[in-house]
Structures are given as C-alpha cells and as structure tokens.
C-alpha cells in the first residue's frame, strides 16, 4: 500500500537513473559510485564530481540511515493530495555510503515527532499496478 494517495506523479527512469529504479524493484538500494576513485555520489550524474571520471558505477548501499532534515507538508499542491492528511518528508543521510542523502516519506503517523539524527531504515514501496510498475524507497524509524 502506498503512503501517499494514488494519483501522485510516478518516477520516470532514464539512461542516467535506470539502475537505481531497477534495483529498487528488487528491494536493493543502490547509489552511484565512481569506478576510478570510489567516491559515492547522489543524485546521479554523468561524471564523478571528485575526479571527473565518466566511469560511474553503482554500488549497493546499506539500507539504514539517519534523518538529516525534514518537513511536514500540509498545503496540497497536487490534486491527488487535496483533502488528505499532512505527510512527512525526510532527508536521510547514509553514513555508510559516503554520507549521500536521499529524499523520501517517513512512514507512520503523519503527526509523529520527527527527530533529526534518528536512525531509519528503507522500506521498498511497490507500485505493482502501475504501468510500468515502479518502486519508491520510503523510510521508517528503526
């Protein structure tokens, strides 16, 4: 079951981002990692910001991170959100993947306390009915 209402915009994979979306379908969290200098990088880019190499690969990242920042959204800016509860967005830092940060929703009560620094783990939210199907990476307290 999806955390946000049905009818939200779906993610589109492209040449640069496809490996992430494909791995998410298999419940694996992958992050770009430079094939030359091993720098982790997020979001995906064509070259490595540390050494300018174009040999960017993908490495599996541990699915635990820490809340780096957050917001609780009330105003429904998308038609699918009208009349629905607020929701929490978290920015999650992955210390074991070079400290890259990912954006997702914090699952659970939308009014729950959100603690910067708290440990969270990834939850793979499958949208199997979508055409084509896709998977979002969400977060919950450990």
């Amino acid at each position, binding site marked *: 079951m999806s955390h946000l209402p049905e009818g939200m*915009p779906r993610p589109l994979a492209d040449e640069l981002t496809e490996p992430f979306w494909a791995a998410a379908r298999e419940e694996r969290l992958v992050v770009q990692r430079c094939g030359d200098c091993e720098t982790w990088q997020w979001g995906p880019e064509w070259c490595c910001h540390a050494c300018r190499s174009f040999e960017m690969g993908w490495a599996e990242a541990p699915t635990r991170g820490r809340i780096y920042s957050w917001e609780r959204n009330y105003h429904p800016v998308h038609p699918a959100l009208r009349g629905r509860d607020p929701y929490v967005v978290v920015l999650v830092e992955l210390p074991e993947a070079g400290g890259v940060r990912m954006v997702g929703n914090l699952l659970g009560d939308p009014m729950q306390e959100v603690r910067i620094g708290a440990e969270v783990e990834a939850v793979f939210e499958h949208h199997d009915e979508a055409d084509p199907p896709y998977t979002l990476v969400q977060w919950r307290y450990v």
Partner: protein
Amino acid sequence: MDEFTIRGKVAVAGVGETTYWKHSQSPHAEFKLALMAILAAAEDAGIDPTEIDGFASYSNDRNDPSRIAAALGCRELAFSNMQWGGGGGGGSAAIANAAAAIACGYARCVVVFRALAQGQFQRFGQAAAGGAAAGHDAFTVPYGVMSPAQKYAMRYQRFAHEHGIERSALRAISMASYHHAQQNPRAVMYGRPLSEEDYDASRWITEPFRLFDCCQENDGAAAILLVAAERARDLPHRPCYLLGAAAGSEYRNGAPVHNAPLYGTSSFTTVAPRAFAMAGIGAADVDVAQSYENFTGGVLMSLVEHGFFAPEEANDFLTLDNLRADGGAGTPPKSDRRPGGRGGKLPLNTSGGNLAECYMHGLELNIEAVRQVRGLSPNQVEGAEISVVGSGPMVTPVSSTVFGAEATL
C-alpha cells in the same frame, strides 16, 4: 590599471512600477505590464524611452526584449540578457549583468525588468494533475516535494536545528514586512496589519513555514533603468550608484536531490562577501537592507550570510523593534555599530517586501533599496547612504546588490 569592478561606474537613472495586484487580478496582459513599468522607469529618469538599447531579466521572464524594443520603437537593440535560474535569485544578478554591459560598452541605457501575471499562465505553487517526474525530479516529486516551499523548507530546518533558532525569529521577519507595508499605499497588504496572534494562529503550509512565512503571489511589473555614472548628476533624482554586485552560490550548492555539502544555507556564503568586497564595505556599513522573502527562514540565513549577525545571535537580533525603520529603532550611527552586530538593529524590507508589498520576484526590493538612497522611501531610514539587497535565498544562483549615495563613491 583598472580594477575589475563595477563600483561607481553605473547609476540608477529611473525606477518604474505598475500597480501591484493580488495574483490573477491584473486587468492588463503580462506583456503590457512590462511595457508600462519600463515606460514608468524612463519617465522617472527623464529619459526618452526610445533611447533604451539594452534589456536584462531573470527567472525565465516571458517577455522577449526584441518584441519590447519593437513595441517601444527603441532606436537599436544592443544588449539582450537573461540570468539563468528560477525564483528571485536573479533579481540582483540582472542588475549586475546590465551594469556590466554598460561598464564594458555593450550598451548605454539598459533596463532591468520583471513582469508577472501568473493567472494568465501557471501558478508557482500548484502542480498539474497526475503526470510523471523525470530526471532528478523523480527522486523528490513522487514523495510530495513539488512546490518551492517544499523544496527549500528542509534547508532552513537543518540550519534551525544546528543553531537553535526559535519561531519568534521568523515571526519578527514576517511582522517587519507587514509593519512597513502599512506606511506604503502601493503595498498589496496596505491597511492589513499583522499581529503576533495572527501569525501564531496561521495555518501551516510546510512545517516549519506557516502561511505568513511565505511570499504572496502577485501580478504587476517593475523596471530599473541604468546608465553610466557620468550621467547621474544630470538626472532628476538624487544619484544612486551601484557599488557592488555578485551572483552565484558556494561549492556544489546545486548538487542534485538535496546533496549540497553545505545544506543549511541561503546560498550566499560566497556571494555576499564578494558583493561587499567589490563595494568596499562591511556589514556594519549597511544602513538599510532588503532581503528576498520567498520564505522567512531564507531571509534569516541570508542575513547571517551577509554578516549582519551570527547564527547564535539570531534569536536576540530578530525582533520587530530591531527591524523597523521607525519608532526609535532606525539605524544607529556607524560609530555605534559593533562589527557584524550593528548595535542590534537593521531596518529590513522597508517597503513591505515580497510578503506584504508585492511579490515582483524581488525587483521591487531593488527599487526600494534605490528609494532609500534617494531619500524617498515610505519608511525612510534617516541619512541612508548604503543600501543592500539579497535576492532569492536558498536557490542557486542567488545574487546581491549594494547601492550607494554620492558620498559613498
């Protein structure tokens, strides 16, 4: 050998504004609004509009300079410039670009303009139904991060967490804008004062931002006409010179999906020091400041990064009394301003700003900065000679302008 600077080389000849309306209320087409503001700036300068030979704008303004030049019968088009980046980050950069064109001889009489009638197009704060998110947006939009408030709230939240910022600090920024708007008949919120209770009771938009932390959306247009400094003394108004300007952002501010190494920032950490260095001033020299309010949290970080106070001083510094131009606050004499601390006072957003005058993407803030140097603000800071604008906090690129009176050259 000449320094590479525009300090004192360019002056503001004229400023022009249309009536400011709530969004979708303009009776005029957006392009007509642009023409009206530009003509008002030319009239204010006492300059024949056909003499305008350059145009600069920002934020993907829809009004093409070639069409404007044709519409106005301008004798020649010599400079046509658009600053990259969305939001209001280009408000001061467009002035910098126009000034550079004049200083380098590309054009002689350049108008910076911005026209907005969102009701005739699409509003900023609303997404289209359904749809899909491509590229880097695919990593944020499906999670409900779409509007500007949602894109930038987490930057401020992180900063507030790191520095223990209290809600009263944001409230003071909002109240200063509303306070000043009550003396400004042009302001959309003229006659609509804001109390502490109103602010505290207002609904959340994106926590940590309440309704009154967020800018308005408006219709209207604004224009600033620039010429070489040598002409300034022959023009109708007290001369106002550009002392410094800078645009950009610090290292990898634009790293995708909220991965800027320095995250809790208004993006001014390198820009503001460059603008001040070009102007040859420090924060303690500034008499009055305009700081772009997309959201009050951005203003707070922007004031820190312009050096007006340290993050740890924010809760004490940011009170309505310290930010209002009137009522015994004002600006203390320069001798009383401790470095970076300004004696605790800084008149801020003295026309009402984006929150309460008009959201003209911050060009109205630059116009107000000019009015302060001319001595014509509805909330005039007595003896104001150095007037600063920070445009578009938290986006990238952002930009800053420093204006000065003749005595500052």
